[in-house]
Every structure is written in structure tokens, then in C-alpha cells.
């Protein structure tokens, strides 16, 4: 029941918000913040009861209804793959809400309602173990995000919102078809049971893998299905970009882990090299394009494409290092990129521009801001002792030793991605913070307020924590990852 309580707790806040009068903007903000904080508290409670060695923790399995004899269940559960994602979600949500304190002035009520609804959706996606339930949550996250981009976004917000919606929906169409097929063949929609009955649909594995895979690939996004991402990121409000980059993109990668690998192991093994190549193209392409950007937000957006390329590379290495590195890197990316978007948003609030050329020499004017930015940028680059390094390093180790890739070249080429990242991130940092102050408008900029520092502080703390002492995180992840990898490998062996 803990899971249900945690997942749906934000709805309490939604209800409270609905009842508030339109002018009580500050009350609304507080209500939303407190709700999300309590949700975070609940997730910590879940963590306290979490046992990494069990495959599903705190499972809630309620019969929902039967459709033509096939049960559709309300089936939630948490394991090592999802626990970090859940924590990431509940952790980032209050931070995002805090970041909107000044940024969102219009229709605060609607904004907060959509934000909390989004949290429900995201938690549901990470917890659902019934395919239909998963699909419902998956699609449901679209709606609040669509509005967050479409109402509170930038100039081309409508275009970006519709593009985001249609791309994701297009992906999920095939997934729905695959879910229907699985349910029909196996007579169940529950993920564990489907794994057990894998033999029934083994013949169609590759097609099913593709159907699921395209949906997740769009979400991740894997090259060449990434085109919606820069638009959505750039046009979304800061909090939206944060959540989008921090959590929503992880849903895709998580989907691969949760469904593609265990349900279609043989197909996964077969597809792994292709996926890895796409991931590497994504890493290099994302980096190259990021380098060419003049808009900071676009730069960060393209950097996401590159970073998630690493995640995919790790997942399809199909060994323990690769997968657990990928899971950790998902968290890392959520935190680092989330923080980057937050920083971009803060400067945008002050200058109403994101052009790289509009800045320069901010180091002198906003020292605290510059300092935090330094930490975050370096973490995103993967500097040792910061979180990014741990994740990327583990992934590269995994890729290097991966049997399915069969060649160290994959890891070798991917490593160039790390260098590219260093290049464009340092270029960005230099253009904004170093050198002389070229624009007179920048001279009067104020440094971070206390609220903003409070917003950023937890992120910085986690960046250092993971970077210096990642063991507790790996302890959470590893048992589940080992199970998963074993399952995939044994299935692949059997089928070979």
C-alpha cells in the first residue's frame, strides 16, 4: 500500500489546489511544494522498507477488471531498477516546483495541478508491472507535459507541444499493438507472468521488440527519433525542461530495461549491436550539434541526446557493469542536466535571452552562480569525483567487456563522446562566465537569491555524493541488474 499512497499522494495536492481561489498564488505554490515534499518523504519511507535482493518489493496486485476473460490488474511493484527512478522523480519534483516560484506568474493553479499530475504519471510509469497499466501511465504523462509546454512555454510553444505529443503518441501506437498481441497470446498482461510464459510468443519476439523499442526509442530519444526533443526542451518552461530531461527521458530507457530486455531477451541480444551503433551515433551527433548551438538551452538539450546515448550503450551491453552503469547514469543525467536547465532558467529570468553571445564574464558579477555552474558543468562532462564520471566510466567498462558487442571498438568510439562533451561544455562555460564583461546589461545582474540557492543545493549535494561514494546506489541497483542480466543471458543461451 506504500506504493499506492506515494503514487497517488500528489492528487491530494491537486484536490486542494482545485479548491483554492485564483488569486491565492502563493498559497498554491506552498501547497504544491508541500505536497511534493511529502511525496518525497513517502518515497524515502518506501526506500527504508526496500530490500534490493527481492525482485518485487511492496507489490500491490489488485484485480481491476477482466476484458474478454483476460485480467487487467492494478499491479504496482518496485525493484532495483525502478527504486532510483522513483526517488529521482520525487526528488526533482519539489526542486522544480521551487524553481517556478518567480518564473510562473500566470495561471499558477493550472501549472501546479499539471505538475502534480505529471508526478503521478511518472511514478506510475516506474512502478506499474501490468502492461496495460504501464501504458495508461505512460500515455497519461503526455497530457500534463503537453500543457506545461503549450501554455507556459516559449514562442513556438504550440508547435513544440503538438510535436512532442504526436511523436510520443506515434511511438506508443506500436507499443499498444504489441501489448494487445501479448495479452491475447499469453492471456495476461502482468510483466512477471509474461516473462514466465515467454515461450508462447517467442516466434514474434523481434517484431514485438521493435514495437516496444520504437516507443521507448522515441522517448529516450535514440537517434534518429530525437527531433522532437530540442523543440520541446527549448520551448518548455524551466521546470518543464527539468522534469522532461530529468525524468521523462528516463522513462524510455527504463522501458528498455523493464520490458524489452526481460520480455524479449533473444531479440535484445540480436538487436544489441544495432542499438549500440545508434547510441554511438547519438553520442557523437548530439555532441557535435550541441557544439554548434548558440542557444544555451538548445545546447543542453542536444547534450541530453549524447548522454542518453551512453545510457543506451550501457543497457545493450547486457552485462552487469553496463546495465548498472546505465541505471546510475540515468540518475546522474537527471540530476546534472536538471541542474543545468535550472541554471539556464535562472539566467533567462534575469536577461530574457539564452544566446551564448549575450553573456561573458559573469564570473565576476555572479560568483555563486558561476561556482555552482562550474560544479554542474563538470559533473555533466564526467569529471572524476563527480557523479557523471562514475556512470560513464561504468558504462564504458561494460561496453568494453560486452560479449554481445563482441568488439572493444564500440566502447572506444563512444569514449570520443566524452571528449566532445568536454569540448562543448567548456566552450559554453567559457563563453558565459569567463573573459571580460561584453554586454553592459549584464553588469547589473543580481547573484542567486536564497531561494535559488536552496533550490540548487540538494542537486549539488547529490552530485558530490554519487561522485565520491556511489556504493549505496550500486547496492540498490546491482541485485536487480544481476538478475536481469542473468535472465537475458540464459534465455539467449537457450535460444542460441
Amino acid at each position, binding site marked *: 500500500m506504500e506504493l499506492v499512497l506515494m503514487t497517488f499522494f500528489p492528487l491530494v495536492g491537486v484536490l486542494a489546489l482545485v479548491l483554492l481561489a485564483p488569486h491565492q498564488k502563493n498559497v498554491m505554490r506552498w501547497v504544491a511544494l508541500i505536497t511534493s515534499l511529502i511525496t518525497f518523504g513517502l518515497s524515502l519511507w518506501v526506500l527504508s522498507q526496500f530490500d534490493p535482493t527481492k525482485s518485487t518489493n511492496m507489490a500491490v496486485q489488485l484485480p*481491476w*477488471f*477482466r*476484458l*474478454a476473460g483476460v485480467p487487467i490488474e492494478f499491479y504496482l511493484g518496485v525493484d532495483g531498477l525502478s527504486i532510483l527512478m522513483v526517488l529521482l522523480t520525487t526528488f526533482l519534483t519539489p526542486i522544480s516546483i521551487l524553481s517556478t516560484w518567480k518564473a510562473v506568474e500566470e*495561471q499558477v493553479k*493550472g501549472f501546479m495541478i499539471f505538475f502534480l499530475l505529471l508526478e503521478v504519471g511518472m511514478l506510475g510509469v516506474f512502478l506499474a508491472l501490468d502492461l*496495460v497499466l504501464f*501504458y*495508461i*501511465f505512460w*500515455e*497519461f504523462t*503526455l*497530457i500534463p507535459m*503537453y*500543457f506545461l509546454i*503549450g*501554455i507556459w512555454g516559449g514562442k513556438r*510553444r*504550440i508547435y513544440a*507541444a*503538438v510535436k512532442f*505529443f*504526436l511523436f510520443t*503518441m*506515434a511511438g506508443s*501506437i*506500436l507499443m*499498444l*499493438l504489441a501489448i*494487445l*498481441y501479448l*495479452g*491475447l497470446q499469453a492471456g495476461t498482461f502482468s510483466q512477471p507472468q509474461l516473462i514466465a510464459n515467454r515461450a508462447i510468443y517467442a516466434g514474434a519476439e523481434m517484431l514485438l521488440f521493435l514495437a516496444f523499442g520504437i516507443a521507448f526509442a522515441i522517448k529516450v530519444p535514440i537517434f534518429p527519433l530525437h527531433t522532437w526533443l530540442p523543440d520541446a526542451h527549448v520551448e518548455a518552461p524551466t521546470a518543464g525542461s527539468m522534469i522532461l530531461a530529468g525524468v521523462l527521458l528516463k522513462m524510455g530507457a527504463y522501458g528498455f530495461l523493464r520490458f524489452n530486455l526481460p520480455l524479449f531477451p533473444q531479440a535484445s541480444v540480436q538487436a544489441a549491436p544495432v542499438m549500440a551503433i545508434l547510441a554511438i551515433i547519438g553520442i557523437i551527433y548530439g555532441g557535435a550539434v550541441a557544439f554548434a548551438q548558440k542557444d544555451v538551452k538548445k545546447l543542453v538539450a542536444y547534450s541530453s541526446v549524447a548522454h542518453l546515448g551512453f545510457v543506451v550503450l550501457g543497457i545493450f551491453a547486457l552485462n552487469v557493469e553496463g546495465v548498472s552503469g546505465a541505471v546510475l547514469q540515468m540518475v546522474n543525467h537527471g540530476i546534472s542536466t536538471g541542474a543545468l536547465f535550472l541554471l539556464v532558467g535562472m539566467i533567462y529570468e534575469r536577461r530574457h535571452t539564452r544566446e551564448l553571445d549575450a553573456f561573458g564574464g559573469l564570473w565576476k558579477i555572479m560568483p555563486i552562480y558561476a561556482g555552482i555552474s562550474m560544479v554542474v558543468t563538470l559533473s555533466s562532462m564526467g569529471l572524476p569525483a563527480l557523479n557523471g564520471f562514475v556512470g560513464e566510466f561504468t558504462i564504458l567498462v561494460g561496453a568494453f567487456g560486452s560479449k554481445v558487442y563482441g568488439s572493444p571498438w564500440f566502447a572506444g568510439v563512444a569514449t570520443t563522446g566524452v571528449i566532445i562533451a568536454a569540448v562543448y561544455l567548456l566552450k559554453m562555460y567559457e563563453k558565459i562566465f569567463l573573459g571580460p564583461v561584453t554586454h553592459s546589461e549584464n553588469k547589473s545582474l543580481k547573484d542567486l537569491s536564497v531561494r535559488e540557492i536552496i533550490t540548487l543545493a540538494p542537486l549539488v549535494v547529490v552530485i558530490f555524493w554519487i561522485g565520491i561514494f556511489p556504493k549505496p546506489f550500486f547496492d540498490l541497483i546491482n541485485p536487480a541488474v544481476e538478475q536481469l542480466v542473468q535472465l537475458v543471458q540464459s534465455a539467449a543461451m537457450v535460444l542460441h
Partner: protein
Amino acid sequence: MTQMSDLLTILPVFIVVIWAVLLLLIDLWIPKGRKGITALLAVLGLATALGVDLAIQGQTSFAFNQMVVLDGFSSFLQVVILASGITAIALAYDYLKRMDIEHGEYYVLLLFSIAGMMLMTQAYNLLMVFLSLELLSIPLYVLAGFARSRTESEEAALKYFMLGAFASGFVLYGSAMIFGSTGAIDFPGIVAALNNGSANLILFVIGAALLLVGFGFKVAAVPFQMWTPDVYQGAPSSITAFMSVAVKAAGFAVLLRVFLVLFPSLADKMTPVLWMIAVLTMLVGNVVALAQNNIKRLLAYSSIAHAGYILMAFVGYGNGEVATNSISSALFYLVAYGLTSFGAWALVIAIEKEYGKGLMLEDLSGLGKRYPWLGAAMLIFMLSFAGVPLTMGFWGKFYLFRTAVQAGNVSLALIGLLTSLVSAFYYLRIIVYMFMKPGDRELHIDKWVSLVLVVTALAVVALAVFPGLIFEWAAQAVMLLQ
């Protein structure tokens, strides 16, 4: 001879027609300008019939020498139709006054049409099929042209009439062919003739095809859809709302019954045709809807598209295992579509300024901001139309596509899914206008329309959380199909 049990079989229909006739008389004493009383009385009659219908759920019987049948299928659809009728009256209550076309006959004709639809769900004889088709159509022709001083309304009525009568012609010729091939017009007789091989199969196939064409017109399946946008646009919105749900329900009711009872042996010939029609209907409806700027026309094309989805359920009708699922998925989809459609039309009625005015998409600008609840309701309806989860529309599509996959028509389900992606685009346009474009229009939403909005929106969401209710009811209805 007629007996009490016969009467019991058609009791709901009986109540509605008798009430219509009485209402015609009572209306004479209701002063002009207070025709709301007539509306309330009409609702009373429909509610009584609805109550009776719910009370006799689960019973099955034949009556009037097997002219009509009462089974789960018919009582399910009758509940849908009666509920549509009540909703349509709620929508019309204030609308007619505003458009200055308030006459008591409106409600009387509506009741007659409803009676025709109800009878259609029960028809078990080609003669009854034809007559109930006419009983439902003729009052609707008039109702479509009810705004007499409006050229649009009259044109809509004339077009509807022409195409409706044209469709009747096909139904009739088809019936004649089937009679010619089997020598019977009652379903059992036709089936018997088919089974003992005395039927002339060539004639039978021609007849079946003609029937399909005729009913294709009624449910607005492509390529027989050309009347729909004009009629939907020109007719009074309160009638359009009714047509978009109830006529479809009745049309599909008879189509389903005819196909399942009479044409199972033609399945191999019919399936490709139905496949083609379903695909075309989904494609044309959704693609053309993209280009629409008038909400009524947009919803008209969307209703064509939804007819296509329901037709998808038919494709596998010949497959015994799938057949029950086809019907119950079609029934479920009808409920989902009906609730959603009424909600959307309630909004159209709320924003219609003068007759047919203020219905362009730009006129929606800013409504979501100004009327958040209205906006939320419309959001729910549009998402439900598009088939996004946590709405009835999602489960409807889910079930339909499942049926299609089960019948082995993965390609069909894929086309359905792709077209619903297309449809998401124009439904999102409405949302974009409502929430993301500036504007400040005043609406006057009367209490009945808002009631409809609230009830349908809540139902679309609540029944999406607990869809098992309707699923089971639909499945049960099919179990009792005669």
C-alpha cells in the same frame, strides 16, 4: 393473436410511442413560450421507458410472430438510445429558445424517432427493419430542417432527406433481393432457407451488398458519407448531437444483427469489403477532419472516423470465436463514443451564438482560460475521442483493436492506430485554441447544458477508471443475443 407477453417485449418502445402521441395532444394546451414543460414531460416518458428497460434487462423473448425480439443486445442499445434521447432534450431545452425555434413538436418528433431506433434494435424481420428505419428517419428529416427560417437548416434537411431516402431505396432493394433468394422476410425463415440450400446465393449476395450500402449511408461509412458534414453543420446543433450518437447506435445495431444472424455464411465474401470500408472510413474521416475550421464540420468528420472504428469490429464477425468480442467491443465503443460526443456537442451548443454563428475554431480562443471547468471537460472529451488513456475512448479503442488483433487483422488495427494518431492532431487543435490562444469570449451556458457537460465528463473519466462495469454489461448483452 396479440398477447400481454407480446406487449411486454416491446414495452419500452410502446411507452415511448404512446407518450409521443399523448404529448402531441398535451402540447396543444401548453402555452407558447413555455414549451419547456413539453420537454420535461418528454423526458419523463423517456425516463419511464428507460426504467422499464433497465428492469427487463436480461430477459429474452420473441413477440408478434417473431417480428421483434427482446434480448440483451437490444436492451443494451435501447438504454443507450434512451439515454441519448434524454441528453438530447437537455441540450435542446435552452438552445431552441435561444434560436427562436421552440415548438412542442420538436420533442414529439424526437420521441417518434427514438421509438424507431429502439424498434430497430429489436427488429427480427426485414419488414420491421425497413419500417423502423423509416420511423427513425422521417422525424429526423423534419428535425434537421426544424429552423425553418434558416436556409442552412432547410438545405441540411433536404440533403439528409435525399440521401436518407436513397439509402432506404437500397435497403429496400436489398431486402427484396433477399426475399427473392429465400422466399422469406423473417430472419428465421431466411436462415432456414440458407441452411437447407434452397436459397439462390447470387441474389442473396447482391441483396446483402445492397443492404450494406443502405446502412452504410445511415452510419455514414465511406464512401457513403458525403451527406454527413453538410447535414451536421446545417441542422440545429441539438439534433446533430442526437444524430451523431443515436442514429449511429441504431444503424450499427441493425447492421450487427443482420450480419450476425443472416450473413454468417457470407463472411468470406464480406470480410474484405468490410475491411475496405472500415479502412476508408477511418482514413477519410480523420484526414479530411484535419482541414476543417468549423467545429460542427470537424465533429462531423470525426464522427465519420469513429464509425470507421466501430466498423473495424465487424470485420471479424464471421469468426465464431471473435464474433462475441466484436459485438461487445462495438457496443462498448458506442457507449464511449456516445458519452464523449454528447459532451463535445454540449460545448458546441454553448458556444453557438446565433444559428450557425460563432462556430469557427478561432471562436474557441481563450475559453479554457476563462472557463477552466468547461475547458477541462472539453479536454476530457477530446482526449477520449483521440483515445488517450484514462478516458472511455481509450478503453473503447483498446477493446476494438484487441478484437481486430484477435481476428488476425493486425494491419487493420495498425491503420486504426495510425489514423487515431492523425485524429489526435485535430483534436489537439481544439485544445490549442482553447488553452493556448488568447481570446475573451463570453458564453451563456444554461444549467441543462452544463449538467450534460458535467455528467458526461465525469462519466467518461469515472467509467474509464472502472470500465469493468460496462465491459461486463456489454459482454452479458452479447451472451443473450438471439
